[in-house]
């Protein structure tokens, strides 16, 4: 198992490098440069601009700039934000925990909803329960997250006034009161994201379990006299989870899309909303770093999914 882990880790590194190459190429191909406002400033003669460019190495060939950028990112020097005047790494680290909290909880909620419903639907296919949940699943993943978010705000904040719709990272309370306030403000963004993920995952779980339930070893388990519950939980689910984990891992880049939208609607101070605000204020170092962080998170979660995969299916880790 540890050899498997090591192998997956070693594969992640070229993946990360490849992504960073793509990101950097996109940036290098883009027109415009950080000093273009200076071009219109009459106090800055062109030689000074040229000197500044040479000093920052903007005129070096692209491979050199890429190597410099990659080594800087790896060392933790992510640049300096044009707008906020602090290190980009500080800015991102301040906001990353919030995003991870909302994302992680939403994904967990999605799985908690999808697994039991999917399994029960597959065990009783085409029953009333199955048809109702399939309809809900379709509705769930056809509703765009931004629309669901707006509807939730309309219902729970405006008409019913039960929940606040602006997320504040600095709640002035302690202990239970703090946890209660946190829960009240976090429940809507987490529900919006989680239900969307859950709807998509329910369908996957259902079809995966449907495929496994017909196989011979399930018959064997039943004829051995094992109760239905044990058959399902011990034999069917564990094998059905394998394609589900693969599919969930493939969906991971999509979760960040949902995170960006939810953070915009509910004003959650995470890196998604930071990305949008830095795009609107042309803050390039922050944009590059955030995109890189998203890609790194994707690679990280894929690694975790691989580990879960290896644990679920012992054949994989022996290869």
């Amino acid at each position: 198992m540890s050899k498997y882990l090591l192998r997956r880790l070693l594969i992640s590194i070229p993946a990360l490098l490849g992504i960073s190459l793509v990101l950097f190429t996109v940036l290098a191909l883009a027109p415009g440069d950080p000093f273009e406002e200076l071009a219109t400033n009459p106090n800055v003669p062109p030689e000074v601009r040229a000197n500044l460019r040479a000093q920052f190495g903007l005129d070096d060939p692209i491979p050199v700039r890429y190597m410099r950028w990659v080594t800087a990112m790896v060392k933790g020097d992510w640049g300096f934000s044009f707008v906020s005047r602090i290190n980009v790494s500080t800015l991102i680290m301040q906001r990353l925990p919030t995003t991870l909290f909302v994302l992680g909880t939403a994904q967990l909620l999605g799985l908690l909803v999808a697994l039991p419903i999917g399994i029960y639907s597959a065990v009783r296919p085409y029953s009333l329960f199955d048809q109702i949940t399939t309809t809900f699943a379709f509705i769930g993943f056809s509703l765009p997250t931004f629309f669901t978010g707006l509807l939730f705000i309309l219902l729970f904040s405006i008409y019913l006034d039960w929940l606040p719709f602006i997320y504040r990272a600095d709640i002035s309370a302690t202990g239970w009161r703090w946890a209660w306030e946190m829960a009240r403000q976090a429940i809507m963004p987490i529900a919006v994201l989680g239900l969307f993920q859950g709807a998509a995952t329910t369908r996957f779980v259902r079809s995966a379990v449907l495929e496994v339930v017909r196989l011979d070893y399930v018959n064997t388990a039943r004829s051995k006299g094992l109760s239905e519950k044990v058959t399902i939980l011990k034999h069917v689910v564990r094998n059905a989870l394998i394609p589900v984990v693969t599919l969930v891992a493939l969906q991971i880049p999509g979760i960040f899309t949902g995170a960006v939208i939810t953070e915009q609607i509910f004003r959650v101070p995470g890196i998604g909303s930071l990305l949008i605000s830095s795009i609107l204020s042309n803050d390039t170092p922050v944009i590059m770093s955030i995109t890189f962080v998203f890609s790194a998170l994707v690679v990280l979660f894929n690694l975790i999914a691989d580990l879960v995969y290896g644990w679920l299916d012992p054949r994989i880790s022996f290869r």
Partner: protein
Amino acid sequence: MVSARRPPESLAADAWRRFRRHHLAIFGAATLAVMVLAVLVGPMIYRVPINEIDFKAKLKAPSWAHPMGTDDLGQDILARMLYGGRISLAVGVAAMLIAITVGTAVGAISGQSGGVIDNGLMRVTDLFLALPQLPLLLLIVYLFRDVLKKALGPEAGVFIMIVVVIGGLRWMPVARLVRAQFLSLREKEFVEAARGLGAKPLRQVIRHILPNALGPVIVAGSLDVAAAILAESTLSFLGLGFPPDIPTWGRILFDAKDNLDFAPHWAIFPGTAIFLTVLSINYLGDGLRDALDPRKVL
């Protein structure tokens, strides 16, 4: 004695018969047809201008004069939605075509060649699959928007950029599907027969393998339209899509989201429109998947 037998059906007729049994897919197809008809023909029948500013009528709820109400500048929302619907649907279809074309080409080359080319193309596919779609989309929009606007005009430039980027980030599943189909179809007898008769690889691919590989591609294509419409709406909702005067459905939601307490109708109509479109496409894709899957006995 002559036994009563059904006359042999063509593939298309068989698929249509199986599709018809899927009631929800029919509902999806019908709804989609209604929406497409509405946005194509609607602006010609309902001739209220989309940007007629009338402050006396601002933020009015739905009424006979304005069936979907007005926004904060007094513009009629129904007219704006009919106009913007064309663009949203056009983006969806165009992005899907790009994704399918690139994906099929990559998958076909990969599946047919095997070896180093296959390996290399699959590594590239994996790399693209690991890229987070929305952040990359936002990055490219941010970097290239001005250049394209200057080169091709504000609407066409943004349209091309959005379509190329959305399609360019959705070809990977199609490539994988096509490659898997190729790998299994390549060894079938009818392809061997064609090879034995002297068909060059290109002819084998185009005439024999590709038509049989297209089933999953059609399903993936229909779902891609839904995903592309969602992606464009998301971009517009974040304020980073088309220029502000073009009322795509996502853009209407972007303008509406800060006025939820006085004018909920402003947000509900475009949101429901996006939802119904995506829902019908999803049902349609599900029906197509069941109709075209050769292993399902219906």
